[in-house]
């Protein structure tokens, strides 16, 4: 029997409630009944998932700081903890104890709900995306569609917080963010359509399991390139970080935010970066499946799938960091022109290529595969 995150949570819940029930008088033994155990197990499951994902995000931030430092001929964070690994916790604590200043003319409701909703919708994605078989919240037949839908909530909340800040720079940043995300949503979804055509499924677990022997990134290279570029724009990272282009817009849509609300924005940005890297690995790079030639002593190791998945994720994110270190920022109109004039035709072409693959039931390089196209 494979160990799943839910089964772990369930056994913990059973143990806790059993211990409580054993010390209670017979009338209270009902606490260990099945519905209560299930309820606690779900809560524990969510808590474990949240904490693990947040820790992962914080390690990701550390990873970016160190890697970026090396690209820039410096060392990055060094002093708090081993090689600065605790630096982000220190930064988070610092932000947590800072006062949040709200401009007098700002709209209270929008000013508070914007960042909060941004963070919450970003965190929900961790519950949807599987990182290994059995470690997601359950098999959703349309998990890919749901993940992308929630992923594209962000511009709304960014725009709400930008507009309610009542600051010209924030407003301009918010407008840019909305324009940019709408422009890049289309190629992103079209490149995903290519994957869906080939796999015949919207279920991420199924998509990953089909990539056991060949990664979709090979035959669907064009879709991969479009997806990564669109994802960079969706994550608002250099070269597409126009909404918070600090050179001209101070800090863009989060100019007026400080303290914990700013931390929410920063954290959500990295959550989205992590989720974006997850998606690249899930859709194109084989997810947690290991090639068949890997010795079974490695694959049967518990958590081996997660480790393999995380290694790929960090490599993908490392590419994003590399891009950030090497490229300047593009201009708004150039960004939109590239999005509408170049990316969408390329994405359409990738869909056509994927349709060709499905029609022939054969993959270039990998040969013909039975069951291709669902």
């Amino acid at each position: 029997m494979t160990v799943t995150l839910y089964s772990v949570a369930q056994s913990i819940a059973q143990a806790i409630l059993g211990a409580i029930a054993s010390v209670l008088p017979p009338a209270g033994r009902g606490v260990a009944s099945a519905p209560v155990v299930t309820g606690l197990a779900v809560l524990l499951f969510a808590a474990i998932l949240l904490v693990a994902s947040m820790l992962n995000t914080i390690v990701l931030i550390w990873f970016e700081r160190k890697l970026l430092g090396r690209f820039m001929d410096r060392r990055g964070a060094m002093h708090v903890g081993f090689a600065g690994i605790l630096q982000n916790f220190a930064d988070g604590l610092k932000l947590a104890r800072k006062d949040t200043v709200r401009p007098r003319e700002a709209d209270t409701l929008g000013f508070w709900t914007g960042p909060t909703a941004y963070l919450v919708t970003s965190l929900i994605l961790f519950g949807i995306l599987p990182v290994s078989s059995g470690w997601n919240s359950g098999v959703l037949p349309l998990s890919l569609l749901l993940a992308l839908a929630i992923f594209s909530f962000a511009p709304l909340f960014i725009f709400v917080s930008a507009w309610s800040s009542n600051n010209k720079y924030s407003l301009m940043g918010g407008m840019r963010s909305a324009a940019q995300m709408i422009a890049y949503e289309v190629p992103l979804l079209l490149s995903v359509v290519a994957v869906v055509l080939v796999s015949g499924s919207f279920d991420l677990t199924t998509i990953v399991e089909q990539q056991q022997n060949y990664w979709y990134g090979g035959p669907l290279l064009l879709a991969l390139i479009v997806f990564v570029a669109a994802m960079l724009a969706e994550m608002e990272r250099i070269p597409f970080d126009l909404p918070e282009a600090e050179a001209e817009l101070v800090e863009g849509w989060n100019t007026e935010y400080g303290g914990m609300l700013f931390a929410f924005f920063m954290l959500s940005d990295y959550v989205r970066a992590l989720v974006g890297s997850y998606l690249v690995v899930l859709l194109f790079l084989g997810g947690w499946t290991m090639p068949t030639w890997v010795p079974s002593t490695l694959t049967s190791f518990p958590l081996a799938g997660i480790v393999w998945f995380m290694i790929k994720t960090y490599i993908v994110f490392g590419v994003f960091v590399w891009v950030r270190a090497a490229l300047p920022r593009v201009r708004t109109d150039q960004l939109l022109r590239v999005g509408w004039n170049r990316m969408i035709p390329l994405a359409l072409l990738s869909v056509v290529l994927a349709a060709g693959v499905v029609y022939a039931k054969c993959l270039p390089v990998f040969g013909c595969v039975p069951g291709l196209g669902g």
Partner: protein
Amino acid sequence: MSEMWINMGPQHPMTHGLWNLRVKIDGELIVDADPEMGYLHRGIEKISEDRHYNEVVTLMDRCCYVAGMSWEHLYILASEQALSIAPPERAEYIRTMADEFQRLGSHLMWYAAFVQDLGLMSPFLYGMRDRDLILDLFQSFTGARMTYEYMRVGGVRNDLPPGFTDRARKVMDWLVDRFREYDALCLGSDIFRKRCDGLGVLSQAQCVELGVTGPMLRSAGSSRDLRKDRPYSAYDRLEFDVARADAGDVTARYLVRMEEMRQSVRIVRQILDWLDTHPGPVMAERVPRWLGAPYAPIGREDYLLKRRYPKGVGFSAIEEPHGEAQAYVVNEGGEHPYRVKFRSPVFANLSAAKHYLVGYHVADIPPIMGSVDICVGECDR
């Protein structure tokens, strides 16, 4: 969105100093621009009237915080003319070398700030790292990294330390290699070219009309360089080419400054060779002692007042890293200059902002203003 004025400054990441760029925007398009300077005015010209000639040098370092040595040189040249004192040849060479180090340091600082405005993170740190080497060189012969107080009326404060020329040569070799990397990171990037080509164009005629000088003028096709056209110190004895480009846009300014850095390395190498073979004094012999002392010796004030210097005026113009700087010093015979006046190139270059900003986008402001190379310290004085 209707037209609106936005204040970019005095506290804004784009300004690189304390000034305010007011721009009127229609959506993302700039329809009007109005630079506001003066936030950093310290009255340096007025303070100078109450200082000994050599004490003013201290103020010159504070005048421009990235090109202190050039401003020292500018002031000292005018003062020497006003006081009719000539420095020894070795001092002239050392001054020229210090000038070129300062040009390298200033241009590296400009490079770092400029690419940072474009969102290029790594070259920013590369530029700062390499500027540090120049500052190390300055530290080894002046004792300071930014405020040198090195030049004196009649020469320079001290000779170079032993082994300096070899160390400087190593730094020059390192820099020439790095310039290739800089070009690869900037000119080799399509996004960089897209962000910079055809932006902030000023024609040569406009530059002349608006008093825009320095790399901005040379990027518009002019080959005016005071080091060639009106040589001072040792420049007439050195070989170098004037860097110029024709387009007059941001890329052209980048090209001009990069080429100037290469030419600076060339000049410095020649000077280092000369310095190795020509030892000698670095201070003129017949400089009145009170000029060399920062303060009047106690009890000798009456003596000082009696030792008046013949009256005179001095004018100097040098090719400072940002453009043509000019100084006018009036000597009425006292131990302080009677009047000191400077012409700052940045003030003129910045005042023309409207002419090179209108018609471009808000996102173009950082690269355009970055290519102007602003130092508010000397602009406001």
